[in-house]
């Protein structure tokens, strides 16, 4: 039986960063626990399947660990990490490190549930379910650039300045690119409704 791990949950992000820099690798686990959900969601939005997203998230945490000395005390860890996730994801896309896109209905590995199954909540009305799937499909059909910037804004809830930092572009570019991404999403939704036989 391994010895119990120290409980780091009572410490602030800053304190945890100091512990990790002092060699307490276990304290990094607490930082991972605090940020893993938004990190994975962002990676999954940008990448087209779970496996790529998993690679991106793991790689991002390793990068964050190596770069902890550059973390500015007093700042929130979440946006800093999401910036790394976004950069890592876009870099993976540029390098062609991608697997085939997963269908919304694809069964995943253990611990991963297909989206169609997850949102098919019995309490969800059929119309709402159809609409949710429609939006997800429209989003999945966007370009990588548009998916990334929308994910940073929608899932990461980052400010324009943080998005600019993550993408390495000026804030003005974030404004225009985000607007184009939103318009593209609306356009795809409109097209989808035109071809959908069930649309009223």
């Amino acid at each position, binding site marked *: 039986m391994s010895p119990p791990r120290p409980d780091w949950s009572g410490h602030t992000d800053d304190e945890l960063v*100091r512990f990790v820099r002092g060699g307490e690798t276990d304290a990094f686990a607490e930082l991972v626990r605090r940020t893993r959900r938004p990190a994975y969601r962002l990676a999954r939005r940008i990448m087209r399947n779970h496996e790529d997203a998993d690679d991106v*998230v793991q790689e991002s*945490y390793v990068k964050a660990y*190596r770069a902890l000395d550059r973390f500015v005390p007093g700042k929130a860890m979440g946006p800093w990490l999401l910036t790394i996730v976004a950069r890592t994801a876009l870099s993976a896309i540029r390098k062609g490190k991608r697997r085939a896109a997963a269908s919304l209905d694809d069964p995943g590995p253990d611990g*991963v549930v297909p989206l169609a199954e997850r949102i098919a909540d019995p309490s969800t009305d059929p119309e709402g379910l159809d609409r949710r799937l429609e939006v997800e499909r429209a*989003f999945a059909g966007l370009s990588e650039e548009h998916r990334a910037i929308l994910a940073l804004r929608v899932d990461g809830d980052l400010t324009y300045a943080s998005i600019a930092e993550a993408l390495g572009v000026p804030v003005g570019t974030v404004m225009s690119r985000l607007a184009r991404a939103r318009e593209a999403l*609306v356009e795809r939704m409109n097209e989808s409704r035109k071809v959908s036989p069930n649309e009223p």
Partner: protein
Amino acid sequence: MSPDPPHPAAEELFAYRDGELTADRRVVVEAHVTGCRVCRERIDQVSGLESELRARPDDVDERYYQRLEEAVLKRVAGEDRAPRYERRRAETGGAVEEEKRGAPRLPWAGVLSTASAAAAVIVVVVVLVRQGPVWRAAPRPVLLEKSAPDAGVRARADSAVGSTRGIGGVAAPAPASPPARERLAQLEPQPSAEGKDQAKVDALKLGAIKQERDEQEIGSVVAPAEEVAANRAVAPLAAKSAPAAPSGAKDLADAPRAKAGSAPPAALMASQAPGTDGYGSIVARFGLPPTWAEGSVSNESLLRAESDLRYLYRTGGAGADSARVRLYLAEATRLRAGAAPDSAAYDEIIHHYRRAIRLAGGDAQTARAAAQRLGEFLQQVTPSP
């Protein structure tokens, strides 16, 4: 009739919606949106779509997150470069070149030293085997019995043969073997040694000589009786923490490594066995609180108690108080080292704090104090950016 004012650009409209416009532009756009149904619908449409996206259920459940956490920890544990980097920064006042953190690197220093050591061993073995007859004519090595002060030391040396390369006698002793001298004597008169079995005999002789050398080495390495006792006393601790091999082994390795200990106080000799109140009597004698706490320990008392506490820790007598002993030792070392500890003191302080945190178990007060002090220490030695 004046035409309707032009709609704001999409960038501005959505930036207004996101609260990212400057104050003056916000006033202008807001005035337009308030009176423009088309723009309000655009905003509402986008907001609705983004709400749907935000409401997307997680693709993964807790099992995945657990695996992710374990995978990440496994990867970063292999790196474990932060402390070294920190130390270098502390030593050089931060004027250190950024480490290259790209591709994974092999520990070349370790690889080269291992390879060269292996090559040296091979060369020595080949030379010795080829010069077998010369060894027979050479003067006999000094026998251990002549130099050993008593039979007890001899017995200790014999039993420690199998563990000298381990962690100071903690490993199970090797079974007793015939003294090397006897084996040499048995080999000497063998007539077959001159014949076809010469190589075999030489090899056996070489082994016997090496064993005798090992025995002599052990006599000097393991010498202080208290260190042997210390390792034996710590052995149950090692067994208890066997699954955590790296930290357990490191802890054990600490005992012989620590050189700052003092001569054993007589009173302590009687109470050093695990389970006794050695720690309690030390803190009582020097007027220290059971657990170090800021402001409650005088520097003088701490420094006076240090050697006894260090001895207790070295001999494995701290038992359930190990974390508190470590915390005191960290504080004492820190006090001695001053505001700018050298790298050895830095290592020792960090190590004691870390062990205090790990050994604290359910002792939340000690764990919290050690964590807090470690954080402050790192803050102290890390140059501000």
